[in-house]
């Protein structure tokens, strides 16, 4: 399988065809909880991207060393290590952003998307393919977070990246966690609609 898939295909697969948030519907907790502004989305997206790529590469490198009976604990250990690294780094060099999203960085350990990619892909495939797959998944997650954050920040507080663009707050509701589900639902529908649209065009 790895030979058939080029690196570009692996990356776009994660961004579009198997987008973690809109297609696989994994890791919805952060997508709903933290994506209240674009900046939060970007920061958490980058953290997940980092953890995903490093964990995928680590597991792929060590796949012969990991005993099959204890592979899940090893995945968790690997993820926890890289999460701690990014957590300490963000806390040290980006204190302002970290203050807002500190607890969400720590729960990356439990993100379904990362464990799932390690189990489905990295433990079977070579290192380079795992790297591209991790990059694709991370970018897909980053994209999802930014899009949701954009919609919620614009509608909820009338601003983009903290700059007031509308001058008023259209719907305060969008800042609240429950609105995250609405935005994710609408985005899922939108993604599926685009896909259906192109499939239709190809056919006829």
């Amino acid at each position, binding site marked *: 399988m790895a030979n058939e898939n080029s690196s570009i295909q692996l990356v776009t697969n994660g961004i579009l065809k198997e987008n973690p948030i809109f297609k696989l519907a994994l890791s919805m907790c952060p997508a709903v909880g933290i994506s209240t502004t674009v900046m939060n989305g970007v920061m958490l997206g980058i953290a997940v991207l980092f953890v995903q790529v490093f964990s995928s590469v680590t597991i792929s490198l060590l796949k012969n060393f*990991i005993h099959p009976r204890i592979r899940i604990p090893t995945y968790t*250990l690997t993820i926890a*290590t890289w999460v701690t690294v990014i957590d*300490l780094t963000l806390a040290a060099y980006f204190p302002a952003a970290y203050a807002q999203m500190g607890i969400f960085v720590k729960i990356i350990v439990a993100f379904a998307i990362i464990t799932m990619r390690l189990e489905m892909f990295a433990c079977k495939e070579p290192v380079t393919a795992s790297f591209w797959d991790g990059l694709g998944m991370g970018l897909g997650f980053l994209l999802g977070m930014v899009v949701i954050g954009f919609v919620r920040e614009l509608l909820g507080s009338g601003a983009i990246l903290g700059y007031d663009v509308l001058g008023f707050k259209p719907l*305060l509701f969008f800042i609240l966690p429950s609105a995250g589900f609405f935005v994710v639902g609408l985005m899922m529908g939108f993604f599926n609609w685009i896909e259906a649209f192109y499939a239709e065009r190809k056919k006829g």
Partner: protein
Amino acid sequence: MKMILTIIFRLTVSCLIAGTIMGMTFIVTNKAKKANEFAREEKVVYSLMGYSHDNPIPDSMGMHEVFRYVVTEGDQQSIGYLVPMGAHGEGGGFSFIRISLDGTFIDQAEVVLSEDKVREIGDRDAAIQAAVGDSRQIRFTDQTIVVTDHGKRLAYLLHGKFPGFKTNIAVMLALDPAYSMVGLEVMEHEEDPGLGAEIEQDYFKNQFKYKPFDKIKSLEVVKAPMPGEYVDALEGRIDEADALKIMEQYKDQDIYALTGATISSDAVSSGVKGITKKFAYRLDILDNVLEGQQIEVPF
């Protein structure tokens, strides 16, 4: 059996590698983190006092830190203050002054501690412990910075923490010698963005500025729309003299609550009220003792 041993061995190796990576990251980042925190605090102190990095605090001004401890001896409790000694600029060492709960002087002990180690909580605790003896237990509670100019008190800077709507809110306040508010800065909070997080906005936190002590003692939150001119003054959109006039006019006004975040607004206002009242009470006692015992301090 062999499988179990293999698993144990491999897991142990993995854990050791993971631990090494995490430990190395911690060592690398810890220094930067501490420097960051210190820089942020310094910046806040400067801005509360009306100075910036380009406009530094003159030499005649001094910042003297006072640390408050609770001392337990058996079932007896007393309050201990670690204060610098001697006049400003002389560096007369530190002293630990114990005061009983009803405000009378108990004893004073010399603490051997250098100027740069006083900020490190571990070193400080060890030095005080050595001064008071092993039979007493000490517990650090809070610290205050007394700002002086030519030996006269200019302001007090206090750290404070109180529960907000979600988690604790950490603030830093500046009071003048009559305990009126000079400024408020929100250091740390986890309130909802767009709602409670607005407590760090100028139009909310600057409401506390210039409130006299008498007003702070009975500070409440009102749910009413904020007058437009007041918002302009708080946000600094009009020139300083006019803004001051408007602030003066509203100085006996209660705090206007944030829209959709009454609990956060209330938490900040009662937190500030509590910190200020307690501080005023404690400092009066400390001053009484210092005067009564003729202890010379730089503030």
